[in-house]
């Protein structure tokens, strides 16, 4: 048997079906083939079904006349425009509600997150109640609540709530004066740009000076002065080229001015208050993640409270806060698709709704809609990854 033992120890090639490398290739080919087959089956069925039922296909519909109107459009849009244009209008509406929602939810979320950690018992408890209440109730229900229950009891246009004869609130929406830029306004605008560039250079210079000499420069006050002062001077020189267009009750409704439709208000309110409850928890976790020792060390070094916060606590907390915060922004953007339930003309309602019905091209339209959201998600994820690698702790 000794010879056998010798044989066993010699490096043998395993049989091909036992070699992990070949196995891996085999499994992968198998899975890929299965996926491709399933895909081909679905595509084949779809094409066959569409062919048999005489359903139109292709993306040619995008250049055809849409024929329907959209209540809220930030870019020029008329019924005779194409489906492609309608798609663009709807996409911009989606981005608009997301962007405004993100700004409001960030502010609200940070305030509530900080309040949650307040020394003040009452404030901390109120913040906790807010968080637990809102995040445990479905968003769609909250949207319905704002839209069908709260905003529906507003008065008709003729009995609007009225502030200073300039801002009106009724069931058709919130009407505010709209700034009208007169010809001379470009000077003010240029002044703003110049001021902004100036501030950037000033801050860089101040940093460099501090690195070299240790002297500090009142950056904040100076930038404030530049940012406000320069455009103000320009405006004065141009004779204040800005006027306001007030909404007036004409015919059925208020005309002119800026108008926020109730669907928009309800959606922004619900999205931002709901998401804020998650952001508040993220902010709280972020602040708690910065150890007490950091602030103690900072004050031992003689940093003021403000400096400790600005230079020590916040930068470290942000590193913890930003990744989950971005995914909340992403959630908010995706959740804005619930607009379809309350008639806010977003991508899902206009494009995957009206346009889908009028053309009957479900496959193309749903594919485009999903691709848009997927693109937004991937872009934001890519940005977040880039930011994470930049901000990651450099281990030394």
């Amino acid at each position: 048997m000794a010879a056998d033992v010798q044989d066993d120890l010699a490096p043998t090639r395993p049989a091909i079906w036992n070699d992990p490398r070949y196995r891996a290739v085999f499994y992968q080919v198998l899975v890929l083939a299965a996926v491709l087959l399933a895909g081909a089956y679905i595509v084949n069925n779809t094409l066959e079904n569409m062919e048999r039922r005489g359903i139109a296909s292709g993306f040619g519909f995008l250049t055809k006349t849409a024929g329907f109107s959209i209540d809220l459009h930030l870019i020029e849009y008329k019924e005779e425009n194409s489906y492609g244009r309608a798609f663009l209008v709807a996409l911009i509406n989606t981005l608009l509600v997301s962007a405004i929602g993100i700004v409001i939810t960030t502010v609200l979320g940070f305030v509530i997150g900080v309040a949650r950690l307040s020394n003040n018992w009452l404030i901390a408890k109120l913040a906790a109640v807010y968080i637990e209440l809102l995040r445990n109730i479905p968003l769609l229900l909250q949207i319905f609540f704002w839209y069908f229950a709260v905003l529906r009891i507003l008065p008709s246009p003729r009995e609007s709530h009225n502030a200073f004869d300039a801002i009106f609130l009724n069931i058709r929406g919130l009407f505010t004066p709209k700034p009208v830029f007169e010809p001379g306004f470009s000077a003010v605008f240029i002044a703003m740009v110049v001021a902004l560039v100036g501030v950037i250079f000033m801050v860089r210079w101040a940093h460099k000076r501090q690195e070299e000499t240790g002297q500090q420069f009142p950056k904040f006050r100076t930038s404030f002065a530049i940012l406000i002062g320069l455009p103000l001077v320009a405006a004065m020189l141009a004779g204040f080229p800005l006027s306001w267009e007030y909404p007036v009750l004409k015919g059925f409704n208020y005309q002119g001015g800026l108008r926020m439709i109730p669907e928009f208000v309800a959606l922004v309110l619900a999205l931002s208050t709901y998401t804020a409850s998650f952001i508040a928890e993220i902010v709280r976790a972020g602040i708690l993640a910065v150890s007490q020792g950091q602030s103690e060390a900072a004050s031992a070094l003689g940093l003021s409270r403000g400096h400790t916060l600005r230079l020590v606590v916040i930068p470290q907390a942000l590193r913890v806060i930003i990744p989950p915060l971005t995914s909340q922004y992403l959630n908010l953007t995706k959740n804005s698709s619930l607009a379809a339930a309350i008639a806010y003309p977003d991508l899902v309602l206009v494009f995957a709704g009206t346009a889908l019905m009028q053309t009957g091209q479900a496959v193309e339209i749903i594919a485009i809609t999903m691709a848009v959201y997927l693109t937004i998600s991937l872009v934001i994820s890519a940005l977040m990854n880039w930011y994470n690698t930049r901000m990651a702790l450099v281990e030394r």
Partner: protein
Amino acid sequence: MTDAAHTYQPGQHPDLPPPSNAVGILAWLYKNLLSSWLNATLTISAAYLLFLSIPPLFQWLFFDADWVGETREVCSREGACWVYIIFWFKQLMYGRYPDAELWRINSAYVLLVLAAIPLFIPGFRWKQWIGVFLFFGYPIIAFYLFVGGSFGLTHVESPLWGGLFLTLVIALVGIVTSLPIGIILALGRRSSMPIIRALCIGFIELWRGVPLITVLFMASVMFPLFMPEGVNFDKLVRALIAVTLFSSAYMAEVVRGGLQAIPKGQYEGAQALGISYWKMMALIVLPQALKLVIPGIVNTFIGLFKDTTLVLIIGLFDFLGMAQLVGTNPDWVGFRIEGYVFVGAVFWIFCFSMSRYSQHLEKKLHTGH
């Protein structure tokens, strides 16, 4: 006063009680509510806000509310009309499920609760078997109870399903089906085989990148085109497929988190013992990883549970959908708020208790390794 007479050795003096301004209600008030001017202002304004909002809220919810009656005429008072909820209670709970068959839903509920109770008893020995039953046996029993059509039960079509019952069905089916799929996807995403990894990443990122509503739309208008002629799925089944696809992608990410947290030594130890990949995963890695991510799974379930409300957009009458529907009934116009408050309260109780439970688990499982 007698203390003054005593003299103590240095270091032997007994502890004195804290000064009176550091204990008691007053000190607590001072420390927690009025420690600075800013704090005092905040406290007072918050208290004022509460004073303004809480009493009318309670008035509306309870004291001025109408509780008994049969018609909307009894709802003449200022407060909430709970008669509305009581009147529509059956629809809100069960949809249009036939009255004579409601016992089937109720007995499934009872069975679920009875089976789940032992899970919460610490030290109960057959927890695994209960878990296996809940995941594999219970869904089959529930399926035959709800659908019927065999074992002498009449067939109840899915369009008749609705209300809280439908919400629970969608959420539970979603979680039960998405967990195994999510585990497979998570393993695939961590696989060393590039094609499998790419496919899994693609699948996960696709569903995580799009809103659920577009997935539901896809299910309701595109699925029928994917199937050969003559094969068509029930609307509810299509919605369930959509929910499963969507939540398995999220579940995969949760499980992946658990897999990543398992120390490399566990894998290496298993491999050194010559254990095959699947046995290693099933017997060594997954039991540890899944234990770690139970809170994550519960959180995913909470998210899924809240998201089931979206099915009303594709025309299924879940809990919220039923509230919307009865809210447009011409005989009962004007009580939508009551409907929303009721639905919101039920959702809140479910989600809040689950999130508390998940936090509790997190603490309990945080045993450290």
